[in-house]
């Protein structure tokens, strides 16, 4: 019973990075920009969060600056895909290489690698935290506690606000949006930056709030898993949250099993998130044969006024 309690309490630590990264990607992709750079943006967020914590010491400031840093590097991506119409897959991959190189270079040069930090610890949401079994779910760091509200805000924005309607129009049919007087390029540029901020926060969560140190390449493919999660969620924030929680449940189970003395082959355990992602992708594909196609209509297509498709 105690084991189950521990398991439930540790789920958000695994689920929140996936959830925030996927939400950021959905925000960008709903405006029609295919964003494959999540892995790199998470690394930048993770690095800057630790670096700022080491220099300034305030968790809130570090998290904010890590979001800003991710947005700042994604200006490069936005300029490439929105202004220069570079192929979005290539631009996304390049962003990942760029951030991987830059983050480990900066981490080494500035001496931020493998230095443990102290950051804001968990906050108990009394009286929910006193509940039996699931009480641990309500003793989390503030970002984890805020995540459902971030989802609520983004989902409401996309679905119910006027700007959100234009945002989605740009992603579905930029020609029509342009004809209706919506500045397509500006919307897409902002979408890339806003999404990147959330992805950067996801990276900062991993380094600053979960691991509490920086190692080069520490996100270990979680950005790519988030990209897969978005396809699984069919670009719906709530489904992405559900998917992230599902992933969190499975990943949180592994250390608990090890603690209970179950012997598992280590490297096969490390494979599981990737294997599950692959399995989920296949499962979604099997379902898509009958289901609706929910991908934004203009996803991955650069918009040029002069080009009629």
């Amino acid at each position, binding site marked *: 019973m105690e084991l189950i309690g521990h398991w439930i309490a540790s789920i958000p630590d695994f689920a929140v990075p996936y959830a925030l990264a996927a939400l950021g990607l959905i925000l960008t992709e709903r405006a029609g920009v295919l964003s*494959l750079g999540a892995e790199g943006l998470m690394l930048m967020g993770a690095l800057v969060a630790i670096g700022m914590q080491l220099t300034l010491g305030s968790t809130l400031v570090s998290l904010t600056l890590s979001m800003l840093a991710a947005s700042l590097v994604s200006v*490069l991506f936005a*300029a*490439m895909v929105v*202004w*220069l*119409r*570079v*192929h979005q*897959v*290539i*631009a996304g*991959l*390049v962003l*990942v*290489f*760029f951030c*991987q*190189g*830059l983050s*480990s*270079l900066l981490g*080494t*040069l500035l001496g931020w690698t493998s230095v443990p930090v102290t950051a804001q610890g968990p906050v108990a949401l009394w009286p929910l935290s006193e509940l039996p079994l699931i009480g641990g779910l309500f003793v989390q760091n503030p970002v984890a506690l805020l995540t459902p509200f971030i989802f609520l805000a983004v989902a409401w924005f996309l679905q119910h606000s006027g700007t959100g309607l234009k945002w989605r129009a740009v992603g579905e049919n930029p020609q029509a949006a342009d004809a209706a007087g919506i500045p397509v390029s500006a919307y897409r540029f902002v979408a890339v930056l806003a999404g990147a901020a959330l992805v950067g926060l996801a990276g900062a969560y991993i380094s600053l709030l979960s691991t509490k140190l920086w190692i*080069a390449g520490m996100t*270990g*493919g979680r950005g*790519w*898993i988030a*990209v*897969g999660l978005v*396809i699984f969620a069919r670009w719906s924030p709530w489904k992405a949250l559900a998917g992230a929680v599902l992933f969190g449940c499975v990943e949180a189970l592994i250390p608990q099993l090890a603690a209970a003395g179950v012997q598992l*082959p*280590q*490297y*096969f355990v*490390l*494979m599981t998130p*990737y*294997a599950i*992602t*692959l399995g989920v*992708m*296949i499962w979604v*594909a*099997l379902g*898509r*044969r009958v289901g609706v196609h929910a991908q934004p209509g203009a996803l991955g297509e650069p918009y*040029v*006024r*002069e*080009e009629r498709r």
Partner: protein
Amino acid sequence: MTELVATTDGASGTASTVTRHHEPWLSRRYTLEVRQHMPWHRQVLVLLLAVVAGLLVSGAILVAAGVPAGELFQEFVIATIFDAQSLQAVLFQASPMIMVGLAAAIAFRARFWNLGLEGQMVWGAIGATAMSIFEIGPPALRLTFMLCVAAACGLLWALGPALLKLHLGVNEIIATLMLNYIAGNFLLHLLYGAWKDPQSAFPHSPQFRGFERLPEFLGASGAAITLALIAMLLAWWLVKLSRAGLYLRFVDANPDVAHATGVPANRMMLLAVLVSGALAGVAGFLVAAGQEGRLTQAFHHGYGFSGILIAFLARNHPIAATAVALLIATLFVAGRSLQVFYQVPFSMVQLIQAIIVVCVASSDFFIRYRLRRVSPA
């Protein structure tokens, strides 16, 4: 603000008067035009300018990271290319680079984003090492066996995502990437378990025997670079001369029309992906049997990304890919010496690759479009 400017009409020699507007820079309006065509020599010029810009930016970053500016040229150009030993090292490094570059180029021609080159390399090397560990095949044919098994293993690891994309429409980018992580962890499982070197107890496989290593002629890397060049010629034949290559170009230009005219698009894609996987598998064999002489933990790191960048910079052309692979190999070798002499982390090489690609990708814009000022109405 308006002013009158007198110009002479060259043809008739009469003077005419036009009105030109001088507005603040930010309020000028520009529009994008799609260029119909740019002559190839200007395209090459734009490309070269982009590469030079990328190298300049990279140089500035290296200087900021503490490498003396004067040493940079020395390190990259003189010491790497004009030094016989370094040239050897470049050729040595280039052979697997050429293989992964070709692998990526062929898959991309079929519009299949094979980001699983590293996983396919890992399986190629595992297959080749299995031949050595279990002593399969007579010594005289062992190396050939290793090569063939490596190609087969890479091919099989690419088969899964290809079939998933063809039959279920599973996104190949995610599928191939996930398979990389799975292959990498399986490699560690072997090296920390059954295949650990019994002599040193280090997590790498036992050393290959002499006849299981690529022979050396014309310098240390002879056999490896010869294999890479043969692969280049085969790939060139495949994409430029063979019927499959013609079909692939057709599919690439317009999938719908190609399909309507009876081009077996799906079979062509499958063929291209399998060839791509086999080439990546051979790249794994080249690293294991040519460079390391055993199966090691992290030999595949960076090759997948480099392969993709090589294919992109070479516009999926096999011979251009070989040339670009040589450049990237130079970068790797120079990067390694920078790492040793100036403590610049090796990730710098990845950053430089990324910067060069950013510049080249951005320069494409000027080839495809032209900016034109909108004349005020």
